């Protein structure tokens, strides 16, 4: 498996995104400068409708910016075609969505194997091994043959994380991965993310929830289409006098 050694995985220079809306365009992102380096855990925060999901879709090569420069592992990607972006996504990006987006007619194992099935040169055996490892990594190996309708919301989200990891991506992108979960399940997913980060994975996560956002190394705040604030964990710790960090990992708060 090819592995990117470039220190900066995502590099945004003056990136903007506008959607055609009626006669005038709707400029959702105006001037984004942002780097996500290897091994970082970045969270993106901001009010609803500020463009977090849009930003993530650009980072994940699901969409292309309407202006500015976007580099993925040093390679400019804004002019790539749909097929080339698909191949890059498949190789290097793991997605976890708010809705776990499992396909109901496929078993847990088949859902996890989905990204691998789009990749050429992966043997059946290899694919099965990776699926097993990924599911074991999220504690879902015992549910391989289950169907999504037989899982709880939190279990589904863990399967979705396994799916994102099965292809051994360069970066994990998550859009409100805890949005549909209750606190307890949300925390379970977050502790999973922390562990993954500790193992050296690069993660970029959009979240509304300040408490979960605070678990990231770095938080990027969006407002009106641009980054208004970037703070690191250390900075936040120094600033904190309030109870933002009062809960600890893994311990449910009632």
């Amino acid at each position, binding site marked *: 498996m090819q592995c990117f050694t470039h220190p900066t995985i995502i590099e945004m220079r003056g990136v903007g995104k506008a959607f055609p809306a009626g006669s005038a365009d709707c400029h959702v992102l105006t001037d984004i400068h942002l780097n996500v380096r290897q091994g970082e855990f970045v969270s993106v925060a901001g009010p609803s409708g500020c463009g977090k999901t849009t930003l993530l879709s650009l980072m994940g090569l699901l969409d292309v910016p309407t202006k500015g420069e976007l580099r993925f592992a040093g390679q400019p990607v804004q002019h790539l075609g749909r097929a080339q972006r*698909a191949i890059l996504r498949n190789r290097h990006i793991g997605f976890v969505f708010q809705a776990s987006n499992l396909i109901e007619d496929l078993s847990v194992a088949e859902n996890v194997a989905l*990204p691998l099935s789009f990749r050429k040169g992966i043997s059946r055996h290899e694919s099965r091994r990776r699926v097993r490892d990924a599911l074991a990594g999220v504690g879902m190996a015992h549910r391989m043959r289950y169907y999504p309708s037989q899982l709880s919301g939190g279990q589904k989200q863990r399967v979705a994380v396994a799916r994102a990891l099965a292809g051994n991506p360069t970066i994990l992108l998550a*859009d409100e991965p805890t949005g549909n979960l209750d606190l307890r399940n949300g925390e379970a997913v977050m502790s999973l993310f922390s562990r993954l980060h500790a193992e050296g994975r690069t993660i970029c996560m959009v979240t509304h929830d300040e408490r979960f956002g605070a678990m990231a190394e770095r938080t990027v705040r969006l407002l009106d289409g641009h980054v208004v604030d970037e703070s690191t964990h250390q900075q936040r710790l120094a600033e904190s006098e309030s109870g933002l960090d009062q809960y600890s990992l893994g311990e449910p708060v009632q």
Partner: protein
Amino acid sequence: MKWRPQASRDAHALARWPAFMLLASGTLSLGVAAAIGGVTLLDAVLQPPPWPNHERVAIYGRRTPDDPMRAMSPQLYDAVGQPAMVLSRGIARIPETVNVVAGRHTEILRAQRVDTGFLHTLGVAPSGTTDGGMGHGALVSEALRARLADIAPQVVGQTIVVDGSNVEIRGVLPAEYRFFSDVDLLLSLDPLNGSTALDGNMTAVALLSSASDIRPFSARVLRAARDIGPDPHGEDVRWSGATPIDDLVAYRARAPLWGFALSGVLVLAVAGMNVSQLISTRMFARIDETAVKMVFGARWEPWRSAGFDALAVGVLGFAVGLPGGTALVRLFKPFIPPAWLVSAAPMAPGWRVLSVVAAMTFVVLVLAAVIGAARVMGRLRHRERTMMSGAPAMRVTTGWTASALVLAQVALATLLVSYGMIAVSRAWLLAGTSPGFDTADGVVVELHPPMGAYPELSSVVRLADAIRSTVSALPGVEAVGWSSDVPTGRGFRMPFLRRGGGSRFIPFAVVSPGGIEAMGLRLLAGRTVVESDGSDAHPVAMVNEAYVRAFGSRGIGGFVRPAGRGAREARIVGIVGNTRRDAKGAAAPAVYVPLAQVDPHVFALMRQLQPLFVAIRGPAAATVASDALPSIVGEAAPSLALSPPVPLERIADAPLAGAHRDVALFATLSGVAVSLTAAGQYAMHSVEVAASRYALSLRMALGATPGQLLAHVVRKAFRVALSGIVLGLFGTCVMQHFSLGMVMPAGTAIGVSMAAALVMVFGTLVAVAAPASHAAALEPWRVLRSD
């Protein structure tokens, strides 16, 4: 209720979906047309017989084991007499060819001679007669009346010349009148005098006092037949008896046409499935709108919207399907053997057919709307459920109903296409066989020297000689001659003795000198008929290759032996090549005898059954036949009618007509089936793509390239289609194994199957192209905005 603004809103909404309306009503109209076509044909033969007394009428006489129709001879007719249980009886000759002169118009027509009791026994009352009978005059068919009315409006009372004698038209037959074959006029049958050999093949009808008298009457006919003994042809008397006339109608008509009507209705049902799929497509595409409306209290929204769509599609589809069905009836009518038709009334979808098809269409559309609405309701309920349970998962498979419908459609279409391919391969093979004679620069003209003006064989020979010598002297004419049949004809058959014993009926023709050459038959050995083969000369004959083989003949120098009592044998002086006579391209043995030497009794029979032909060959043949021949014949024989000249090319293709019609029929049927199936597949896969938009964009987000997504949808389509194709081909094999329908020509099985499969694969590709490219064009970011 404010349904009026609602309806106009619906209509506007529909107008924004022109493709839906076009496809749905187009698909339905094909089904409606097929159903109208099938049901009309069925209805046409299920008409009550055009003989008011039919329930108590029996046809009696001899029959052969494989033919339910009975033949009567004058002796047997007399011997049976009129027992007490018979209220009235009548007899008719086989229809014959006659020359009719009306005003300045001369035509060759079909006439049937019937005695005075015949129509009375059937209960048929002609119109326009003063006494209900025809006396010594003629009754004309409604079709001929219409034609004659163009010449002189008052038809009844007009005098026409039939084969040289004046006959007064005494009345007009009812429009639906038909006695097993179409004739233009009925002539009176002179009191039975046993004059011609034709009299052995008459048809006798008896009106029984009650239908239950049939058994004793049949027994009486059998007794009478036994008393007379075998007829000159040595036919078995064991099969003599009486048959209710209704049985003869039912025997020939019903089974195949029920099947045909059923196929038509099936096509309508298949079309209905498509409409259902299309309605679902449209509703799935508007499912969010529907969900919102339902939240705001429009509980019946899916049903109402499906119902409105079905209604609109139904009205449009029926309006387009009606003329389509009428056209289909016109296309299919030639396939109905005339013997099946009961009534002569023109075949058209009547109110009965239309109301039946309208009712079926209604049922099909109600089902289509219910299925469509139920599917959308199911999807909405599913959405509600999963919404509650937090993280919605995506359902992507189409319901098994939709897949099963498409599979059945594909299988049915494959079956029909296979039969279409069988028809094509048969026509192809047949077209590849040589007609067996030279068709270039040759024409034939039909004529019929009437018995009255030319009673003796010698007078016909003289007429033939006169016309021949005049025509052959014309520039551009290489050969001219007479024949009782064209090279491909299946007209007259005679029994000939085989060498090993037994006899066989084979085509038999008389030819004048020049006839063989003019028709372009290939002389393989010996000589053709010449002037010196006169009535006093040694009897000679020509045969074809197939005769030599089938009859174990010695060839030149051998003899042909007619099976009839006292028939003269003739020495074979020439052998000609086989001609393509039937739709299988098989060569039948055939015998040709000089016109001057034919047995006069046989000739009398032949000339009443069928016309004679003048064949002309040479660069000027066509112009001579159309310009010079009428005046030459007019001078030699004033009241003789001539048919328009027919080129030999057309004669050569006549045996292909059946094969060509088969191709046309199956091309139509399988064309309809393939396009309906393609529409069904299209509808199913666009529903599927529309319904699984999010799952598809998820795949794309996870790294599926547009090409992979395209392949994904195509693969899914082919999983269903290939199963259907295999099923259809299997069905074809089973049907072939039991010899149902057309039989595949040997060695074409693989080609036919491959071709049929290819057509279906192509149809599937066309059908799935649009949904697959829609899937490939989906934007992966959608998955982030799924709900």
